[in-house]
């Protein structure tokens, strides 16, 4: 398989958040602010890379019958390590993410990629797949968080991931005109639904254009052949 296709497919065609609907709990729960979504996305990306590489390297030694328990233990260990690192170096962020950080263990993306890709492919390919899928998920989270925070509070506040200190923020929508619904849990579902619909519409449009182009090409070919 082509190396570039592995990454690009993970980001767009098989986007975990919006195309496959995997890992929905964190994508709804941690997207009320842009920075916590970024933190969550990075945590998932790091876990995905570590587990995919480890599992791919060990794939020849894991007996097929007990592969699921083995995968789960590897994933749980990795998540524990990442959780401890975040508590040590990004304390505020780990408090904001709370239980969702531990719940990366049961995130279907991680187990899904381990089972579907890392168990069958080389270490390098698995690494690339993890990078692609992780970045795709991160972008999905950021898109959702951007829409929610922008409409909910009128602007975006950036702060340091390490210390939680405020760095820079902007506000475009005046105070009285923000839709605070999008900061709450019901707004999370509604915004996710709207983005899914938007993506469906765009994908349908692209497919339509492709079909039209193909039809036009076929018609042109027929016309030239007919002319002969």
């Amino acid at each position, binding site marked *: 398989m082509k190396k570039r296709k592995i990454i690009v497919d993970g980001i767009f065609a098989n986007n975990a958040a919006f195309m496959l*609907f*995997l890992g*929905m*709990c964190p994508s*709804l*729960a941690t997207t009320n602010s842009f920075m916590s979504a970024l933190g969550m996305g990075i945590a998932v990306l790091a876990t995905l890379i570590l587990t995919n590489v480890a599992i791919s390297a060990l794939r020849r030694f894991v007996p097929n019958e007990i592969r*699921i*328990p083995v995968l*789960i*233990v590897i994933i*749980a*260990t990795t*998540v*524990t390590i990442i*959780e*401890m690192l975040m508590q040590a170096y990004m304390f505020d962020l780990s408090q904001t993410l709370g*239980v969702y950080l*531990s*719940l990366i*263990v*049961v995130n*279907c993306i991680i*187990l899904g990629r381990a089972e579907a890709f890392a168990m069958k492919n080389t270490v390098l390919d698995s690494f690339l797949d993890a990078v692609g899928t992780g970045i795709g998920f991160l972008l999905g989270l950021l898109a959702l968080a951007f829409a929610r925070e922008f409409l909910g509070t009128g602007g975006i506040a950036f702060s340091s991931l390490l210390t939680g200190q405020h760095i820079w923020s902007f506000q475009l929508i005046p105070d009285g005109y923000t839709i605070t619904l999008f900061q709450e*849990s*019901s*707004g*999370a*579902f*509604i915004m*996710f*639904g*709207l983005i*899914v*619909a*938007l993506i*469906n*519409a765009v994908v*349908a449009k692209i497919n339509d254009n492709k079909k039209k182009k193909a039809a036009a090409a076929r018609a042109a070919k027929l016309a030239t052949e007919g002319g002969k």
Partner: protein
Amino acid sequence: MQFILMGIGAILINNIILTRFLGICPLLGVSKSNSSAIGMSLAVIFVVTMSAILSYSLYMYVLVPLKIEYLRLVSFILIIASFVQFVEMFLKRFIPALYKSLGIYLPLITTNCVVLAVSLDVVATNGGVPVYNFLNMVGYAFFSGVGYAVILIVFSFIQERLINNKNMPKSFHGSGIALITIGLLVMAFLGFSGMI
């Protein structure tokens, strides 16, 4: 009385799906027919309660005395996975009818975030003191499962009508409209907040 309040709290006010977004994947996947929603709900209630009891006991009587609390994630997920496997084998051998009706939902529960989240909840400490004693813990786990079941079943009835509804834009079909409907359901349940 305390248990009734706890039940109302866990089912209507702090519902585990609606306020904490846990277990959404099965909500979208399974709820397309009523019978599978009911099967899944029963399986979830049972597994959540039992694995909370097992994880709580393991944490309090093994991990804490040995001072290896940091292994809780690994040990809990192993308990859940092996317990689910055990239940599956037990049902297959002794109650085949129930096994057939639960079908593929049992193995799926291992990766349902509700189970792990409740197990992690019940061992929470507040200033070094455990928040739940044994009885409260069982009640909390059971009612969280019931809360999940209620939403799953209610939503499966709505979902049946959504699938047959042709009066909406094409791009909203499927997950789009389902997510927005859950959003409206959350808003409706917000009406219960402040009841206790």
